[in-house]
């Protein structure tokens, strides 16, 4: 025979103040856990949006990131002419050399960071259709114009449309703000490649080349073809893999931090849950005695209290998760440890993260409720009934 859930639920709220306070304290644990994981979630979402399975990024052999990579324009031209590279409507190859320069800029709060300046060729807009100028207009090559990713424009000083900024030897003018659909490109400044090369005296070379194949399978074949080419001696990677590596390298610290915090904080919250449940047991001694007297067995009493503790945890988890939802509107910035440049991203409380936060709260409740539940089920009926 089971005790109906309604009984547990109502019992919890007989002592409202205690229950609410416990819920609040566990909810804070959930909030912190979800908050830290949302940082990791945001980074992963941003990098996942950057990679396209049809794209191949080609780096210098041995280079781990775009920052370290460079090779001659001659090789870049050979890459663009390779079979397997898709063609645009006018028959031009979907290939773009990219020059990657880090530039120290001031954030709006006065602190400094390295920002990625990316020199691109016109084909890049066909390769990355998610990049759209949302304010102002696209740049025109040869006129020292740049367009700025929307996250960067928000977080850094002096990057509004019309403002001038010295990059290398040349004063560039911001003519547009672009949105790259939540991807890491939102933290970059894009420049026509020739302008960037000229301004930084970079010579006849590129940092990387990005190529688009007709399909994901064709991209894999293209990677193999470039790898096999002994003359090029370059390192091709599927763009999805390249960005997944960065996502993992950068979000790992937050995942570790989140889990360490979760363990330590829920330890404290467990005690709070135990306290509440002990109080429940103590206050309901007579009730329990009656339940036992009318025939409910010990394990039903045990189960009832565990269910009650789980409900307590579940409620706290839901409150914490709800409180965490506004975090999604926060944009945070940190250093991309792989390219050594600023990456801004929006926090993301993915359903998975919310679920694990709620799960954490339920576990906390049940673990905290276990000792009082066992204590309650073990007490003899006579003793229970004798209590005032």
């Amino acid at each position: 025979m089971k005790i109906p859930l309604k009984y547990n639920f109502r019992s919890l709220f007989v002592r409202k103040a205690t229950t609410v306070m416990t819920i609040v304290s566990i909810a804070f644990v959930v909030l912190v856990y979800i908050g830290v994981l949302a940082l990791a979630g945001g980074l992963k979402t941003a990098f996942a949006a950057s990679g396209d399975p049809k794209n191949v990024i080609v780096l210098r052999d041995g280079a781990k990131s775009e920052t370290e990579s460079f090779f001659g324009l001659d090789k870049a031209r050979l890459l663009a002419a390779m079979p397997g590279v898709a063609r645009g409507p006018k028959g031009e190859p979907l290939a773009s050399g990219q020059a990657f320069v880090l530039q120290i800029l001031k954030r709006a709060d006065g602190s400094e960071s390295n920002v990625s300046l990316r020199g691109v060729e016109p084909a890049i807009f066909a390769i990355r259709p998610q990049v759209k100028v949302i304010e102002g207009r696209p740049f025109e090559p040869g006129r020292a114009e740049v367009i700025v990713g929307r996250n960067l424009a928000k977080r850094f000083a002096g990057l509004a449309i019309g403002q001038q900024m010295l990059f290398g030897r040349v004063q560039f003018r911001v003519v547009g703000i672009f949105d790259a659909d939540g991807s890491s490109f939102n933290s970059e400044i894009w420049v026509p490649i020739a302008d960037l090369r000229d301004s930084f005296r970079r010579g006849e070379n590129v940092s990387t080349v990005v190529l688009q194949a007709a399909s994901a399978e064709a991209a894999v074949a293209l990677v193999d073809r470039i790898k096999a080419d002994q003359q090029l001696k370059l390192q091709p990677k599927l763009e999805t893999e390249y960005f997944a590596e960065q996502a993992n390298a950068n979000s790992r610290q937050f995942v570790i931090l989140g889990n360490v915090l979760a363990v330590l904080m829920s330890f404290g919250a467990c005690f709070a849950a135990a306290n509440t449940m002990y109080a429940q047991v103590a206050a309901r001694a007579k009730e329990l005695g009656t339940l036992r007297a009318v025939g409910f067995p010990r394990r039903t009493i045990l189960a009832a209290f565990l269910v009650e503790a789980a409900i307590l945890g579940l409620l706290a988890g839901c409150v914490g998760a709800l409180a965490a939802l506004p975090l999604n509107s926060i944009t945070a910035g940190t250093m991309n440890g792989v390219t050594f440049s600023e990456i801004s991203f929006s926090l993301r409380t993915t359903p998975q993260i919310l679920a694990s936060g709620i799960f954490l709260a339920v576990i906390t409740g049940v673990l905290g409720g276990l000792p009082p539940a066992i204590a309650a089920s073990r007490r003899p009926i006579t003793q229970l009934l004798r209590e005032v």
Partner: protein
Amino acid sequence: MAIGTLALKNLKRNKTRTALTLLSVASALLLLCLLWAFLEAMQSVEGADDTRVVVRSAISLATLLPEAYWQKIRTIPHVQAVTPLNWYQGTFKDDRPENFFPRFATDPATLFEVFPEYQMPDDQKKAWAAERGSFIAGKELVDKYSWKIGSPISIKGDIYPFDLTNIVLRGIYTVPNAPVQERQIFFHRQYLEEAIGNRGLIGTYFLRLDTSDSVPAVVTAAEKMFENSDSQVRAETEKAFNLSFLEMIGNIRLLFGAIGLAVVISIFFITANTMAMSARERTGEMAVLKTLGFGGGQVMSLVVIESLAVGIAGALLGCGLAFGLVGALAKAAEKVFPVFSTISMTPKIWGIGLGVGIAIGLLAGLVPAIAASRLRIADALRRV
């Protein structure tokens, strides 16, 4: 003091509850102390000297400066010595973080002039300077990998398209006051330059000045000197240079602060909850005390002392645990994340931990205490 004794006796009445509250306060303060200790360890700039200035490209560290700047910087008044340091990075053995340590290409003739605190026997200095394909390493690193003078190591290049193959250990230096600095290696810049075709580029120049008073003058002079050139520079103290890396990571302080605040609020609720429970249970008793002539203030202090005792005991336990754990963490971090091996429970962190414990104890007790002091005897005695 009768009230105090009574308050402590009350704590023993429900031992489970007292223990549970104490443990939750302790675990929260443990966490708070750990967070704080990590933050401080991150920001420690051990080994930075205030007579050293770093000159690098104004664009960013990824852009290098011409070799020709070396002699020019040397002519700035108050500059005693200049040495180039190029960050080689590379991969030693594998990509695991425990096998990572800084590797610099430098000039053996001037390195020790700029870093006089690096100590190495003269014969080793000579042997290193005389052999292009050799390197020196700090004692901690040498011990970690059990290298000996003459040991060859190989490092795969990433930033530079050149692998260091079997470079030989010719010297072991020590840095008595900053063992963290003993986890680096230095090799000949000239060796790297020749291998990559004499590009003549230098990542950072480290300058040693006569006194720390000359820092502003030298910084201005260095930045002015190259103002109209193609490669403008940024000059700053070694400390500012080290802190700039932390600045790039972003607002870690804010993140840790937010977490810390949530932890504190959370324990506040836990403790306040317990105190309210314990006070409510004893409503009758308090009424009796009042009947006997105890004043509102005394009854109030009874509850507050009880809560304060839990706060202080929990804080002591939490800080003590943090003290033990931090020691263990520092040892563990030495191998995996050397940056964090300086982590320690400073007096400041002890102060913060105990302070928060006391504050929580006081505040948590206050609400039920005020209720208790306002209690009307007749009402309270009527309750069951």
